[in-house]
């Protein structure tokens, strides 16, 4: 296969059946491997879409520096797109992001501004919003970008329907909400009965330790009414099922994948009672960026402690 640019490799990710992870009779579980994107995560889709949207609107011009709050994946994806398009890129990154993410950003030539790790992604968002007042910067802002949602509507959702038009349920991790909103809307337009369910991380108390409720944050692109369910998953379950995915199906995915599998199994039970069918699980990234947590190699208590020290979601 020949391609004119690495950007042509974004999207069109494979859907693989994982029968050993789905014990419910009459239900088939499939995983969409977003780790197959060029920088190893689903964020390549939105990075490309957001940069193109900025260019199209005229807000992103050659002298601007692209600035974005990110726990890593979006930053790495934007750094790649920025390189191919000739922009400078600055990532606002919590200081407890995994070392692989920091190293990759540096390899792509991104500048890194650190935000307080204890404040999680909220801290990065708040700092980036302050910095973005400087006119030298252009901030795509994934939490509020309609291009984020569109990338999953035009890409992820359409691809799922092309491959598996009979799909009955879709499970993905909740971060900005872009995947769930974009792909979810596309799926529900095809068949309003398709269930769209979110997996979200149970984070450390420190992340929730906001001074007041007004500091709470709901991404502007997130519409809770589009979802049919939302389940919170602990780091421990996420690690255990990420390991199972590797042990039983040979699939090496990032730690949030385990959370998605865990939630999909519960969805499978309900779907089994309801006539059965096919579930698609979106696995947001590959496992490479989490090797330093020893999630696959350490004894579970140690692995859990080490995963919780980094931003694992």
């Amino acid at each position, binding site marked *: 296969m020949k391609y004119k640019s690495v950007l042509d490799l974004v999207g069109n990710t494979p859907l693989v059946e994982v029968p050993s992870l789905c014990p419910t009779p009459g239900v088939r579980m499939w995983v969409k491997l977003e780790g197959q994107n060029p920088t190893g995560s689903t964020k390549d889709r939105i990075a490309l879409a957001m940069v193109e949207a900025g260019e199209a609107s005229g807000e992103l011009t050659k002298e601007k520096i692209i600035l974005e709050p990110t726990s890593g*994946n979006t930053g790495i994806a934007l750094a790649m797109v920025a390189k191919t398009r000739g922009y400078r890129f600055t990532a606002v990154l919590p200081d407890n992001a995994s070392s692989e993410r920091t190293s990759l950003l540096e390899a792509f030539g991104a500048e890194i501004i650190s935000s307080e790790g204890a404040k999680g992604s909220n801290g990065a968002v708040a700092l980036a919003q302050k910095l973005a007042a400087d006119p030298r910067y252009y901030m795509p802002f994934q939490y509020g970008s309609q291009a984020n949602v569109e990338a999953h509507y035009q890409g992820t959702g359409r691809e799922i329907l092309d491959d598996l038009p009979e799909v009955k349920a879709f499970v993905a991790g909740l971060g900005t909400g872009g995947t769930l909103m974009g792909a979810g809307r596309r799926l529900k337009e095809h068949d309003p009965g398709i269930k769209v369910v979110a997996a979200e991380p149970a*984070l450390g108390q420190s*992340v929730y330790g*906001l*001074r007041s409720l*007004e500091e*709470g944050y709901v*991404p502007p692109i997130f519409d809770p009414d589009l979802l049919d369910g*939302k389940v*919170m998953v602990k780091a421990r379950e996420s690690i255990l099922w990420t390991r199972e995915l590797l042990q039983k199906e040979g699939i090496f995915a990032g730690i949030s994948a385990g959370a998605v599998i865990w939630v999909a199994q519960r969805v499978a039970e309900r779907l089994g009672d309801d006539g059965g069918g096919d579930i698609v699980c979106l696995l947001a990234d590959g496992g490479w960026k989490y090797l330093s947590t020893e999630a696959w190699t350490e004894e579970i208590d140690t692995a859990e402690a080490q995963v919780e020290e980094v931003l694992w979601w």
Partner: protein
Amino acid sequence: MAVEVRIPTVFRKFTGGSGAVEVQPGTVGSLFEQLETRYPDLRGQVRTPDGQLHRFVNVYVNDEDARYLEKLETKVTEGDTVSILPSVAGGQA
């Protein structure tokens, strides 16, 4: 046996510092009534004055968001854990 309600740090100033409070089973709504009777300052924090869940608050029965169950009518039985958590920006982002 009762139901344990986990209180986030941001609300502990209303519960005398307590991070976990035991209440009687019922519905999510009846749990909040018990909590607000015991800790009047909590009134208006988790629920808006018209009785709906605050936009920036998520309530989980065990690990499922009650918004997608039966909301305030969600049944809570002995041994369940209810967690109240403020919304935060997700990661993977």
